[in-house]
């Protein structure tokens, strides 16, 4: 059973999120270099960006532009609040599933502001790309979360975990799980859904960012990816359930496994063009998640 932890654990949730995101970044550095020396690259990049001048563009909307990357980081941290670590959760919200979804929509706003605020053609095109991507991933994603809530009969994340004591949701909601993972990649604009930050747009959202702003956007991306991976554990993978090890450790291990898979995908797949993906999303993924929701609803009614 998941219980509400003392209030100060909200800070702990943020720290754990940051630690996991750092592990993801370092792991990616190693994967890119294909040797251990690459682990230092993300750290060195942080050092570089911290010491770099913040640059601006002509007639940029500085307030909105600079609040965008921060909004992404904050949204990821707030989303992580409702993710239980083993038996404890920093915020046992009665509408935790909706909260997670809402925070992830804040990312939309943040990224759009980043793209728009720079007054640069790359940024605006990238911002629109992200909106198109958002429209394509969001509906299957919401139906995936709806399916989870339906299966548990509750929007409380703790209840979702409790409902999986017999059978993990991933087993009887595989389509929803796949749709969720796809959305997890897309909301962090992580490959193959990194079109909004691609080389073909000179870096897209990040084309005009430098210094600490660029650092925040990159950090926000890893944080969001981590938060999405972490939420997959209570939603589909039985939360802290597992033999021998303590529940909190199981939560962490499962999160690292999902996160590792998402990071690993980056180098395996090329970027998907958004107009192609939109087609797939609306014609295949959306109907598939609807059918999944229907099947789960029937099972819930019959049992």
């Amino acid at each position, binding site marked *: 059973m998941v219980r509400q932890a003392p209030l100060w654990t909200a800070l702990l949730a943020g720290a754990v999120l940051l630690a996991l995101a750092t592990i993801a970044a370092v792991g990616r*550095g190693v994967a*890119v*270099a294909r*040797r251990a*020396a*690459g682990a230092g*690259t993300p*750290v*060195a*990049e942080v*050092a*570089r960006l*911290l*010491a*770099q*001048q*913040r*640059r*601006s*563009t*002509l*007639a940029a909307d*500085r307030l909105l532009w600079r609040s965008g990357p921060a909004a992404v980081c904050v949204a990821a941290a707030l989303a992580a609040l409702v993710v239980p670590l083993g038996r404890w959760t920093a915020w046992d919200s009665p509408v935790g599933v909706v909260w997670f979804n809402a925070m992830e929509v804040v990312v939309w706003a943040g990224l759009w502001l980043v793209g728009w605020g*720079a*007054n*640069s*053609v*790359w*940024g605006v*095109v990238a911002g*629109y*790309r992200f909106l198109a991507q958002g429209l394509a991933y969001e509906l299957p994603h919401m139906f995936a979360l709806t399916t989870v809530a339906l299966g548990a009969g509750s929007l409380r994340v703790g209840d979702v975990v409790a409902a999986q004591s017999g059978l993990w949701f991933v087993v009887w909601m595989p389509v929803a799980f796949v749709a969720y993972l796809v959305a997890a990649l897309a909301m962090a604009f992580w*490959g*193959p859904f*990194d*079109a909004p930050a*691609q*080389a*073909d*747009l*000179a*870096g897209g959202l*990040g*084309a*005009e*960012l*430098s*210094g600490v702003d*660029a650092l925040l956007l990159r950090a926000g991306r890893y944080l969001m990816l981590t938060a999405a991976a972490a939420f997959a554990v209570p939603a589909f993978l039985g939360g802290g359930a597992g033999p021998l090890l303590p529940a909190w450790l199981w939560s962490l291990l499962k999160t690292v496994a999902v996160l590792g898979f998402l990071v690993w995908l*980056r*180098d*395996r*797949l*090329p*970027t*998907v*063009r958004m107009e*192609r993906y939109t087609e797939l999303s609306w014609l295949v993924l959306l109907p598939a998640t609807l059918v999944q929701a229907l099947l789960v609803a029937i099972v819930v009614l019959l049992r």
Partner: protein
Amino acid sequence: MGLTTALRRRTPLRPLIVTAPGGEPARMAVERWCDRHAWSPAYAPAQANALVVCGPGSAALDAVVAEVWHQLPLPRRRVTVRAADDADAALRHALAALRSPSYRPDDAAEPDGHGTGGPRYPEPDQPAPDLPAQGGPGGHDGPGEPGGHREHGEPSGYDVHGHEHGGHDDRAHEHSAHEGGHEHSGHEDGGHGHGHGHGGMVLPGGVAMADRGADRDGLMLDRLHVTLGPALYPWPAGLTVRLVLQGDVVQEAAAELLPAGPRHSVVPAVRLLDQAHCLLVLAGWPGAARDARRLRDAVRAGAAPTGYRRWATRVRRSRMLRWSLSGLGPLPGGGPGTPTGAGSSAGARARAGAVPPTGAGPANDVYGRLSAWLDGLDAVFAGRAIELVEPDPGLLPAALAGGDLAAARLVVASLGAAPVHEPVPERA
């Protein structure tokens, strides 16, 4: 400043690579150097801390380079790598300078002593008075560079037609797309040069309203003039493409080339692998692009291309790549990407349904051209001789118009040299 110094000591080099015509071998050496350190080059000036010009300079390119230089945030270094052999020393020197505790931005304009002897660049870091329109006090929110610097006001992308937005700065250079040394001479309205004149409505920052034109559906939409190249990475050396955009759809395109540089005799395999690397970077597949670079560098060094077969199979088998690249950039009537008689990949044919009806043949899109390169590479590594047909830049406008801005980069990258070889017996 102790903290800044400490942070700087760890800084990696993030070069914005500008290739002059004839500078390809130098560029490959720079890329190889970056790969060795597991550092990736920058795609835009804001991301870079070094501006690396590969190959011999020319007046036209120097103008572009000088403009892009202003868009790099501090700390920054400029490096000229004339020949491939100079890359290591020049880049190491630049990195040492960036990491040095005594770094001063004033030094940074000096072309590095290694392998240069290049042109003396104008001093870019003269203090310039901030004009009120530039937003005044917001100018210094970087972590403190000593003196001589203010924020750069380049709009970096919006080159709004019919005015000049250099009003914040008394340096007489134009600001256009950050890739561009945009001279405006190609525009139909011509004649607006440097200066501070803003006709019509002026918005804060000195940017006037964009003009409008009918789009393909007959709607009146804003037109944006964006210049791609020649200071863009990855991008063909010396190429400038001027686009008229509505939204992100290319309405018109015009291409021009800087005068050709020294000719290097390039092994066909190196050329094709290099083209594949550029295309894969733009297609967002860094893993496969890195492998293409490794193979390219192995062939350049005269080593055996170990792992070629695995890489080629992986690229050919990727459904996602085919899905994303097919149907892009069709050329009227075949074009240079169509290898005469070459066995084009079955995959492209299978997806022929995705190719618009204008497409003439399976190789007539970006994916088909990539497949043709792979076929050419297969032939080379099987010991057969192939010839390369140089692309015709005159084909670009037709291939770009109607596509979106990002597809433009892919289409340009795909219009590289095409292999021509004897008909391949059906691959098993």
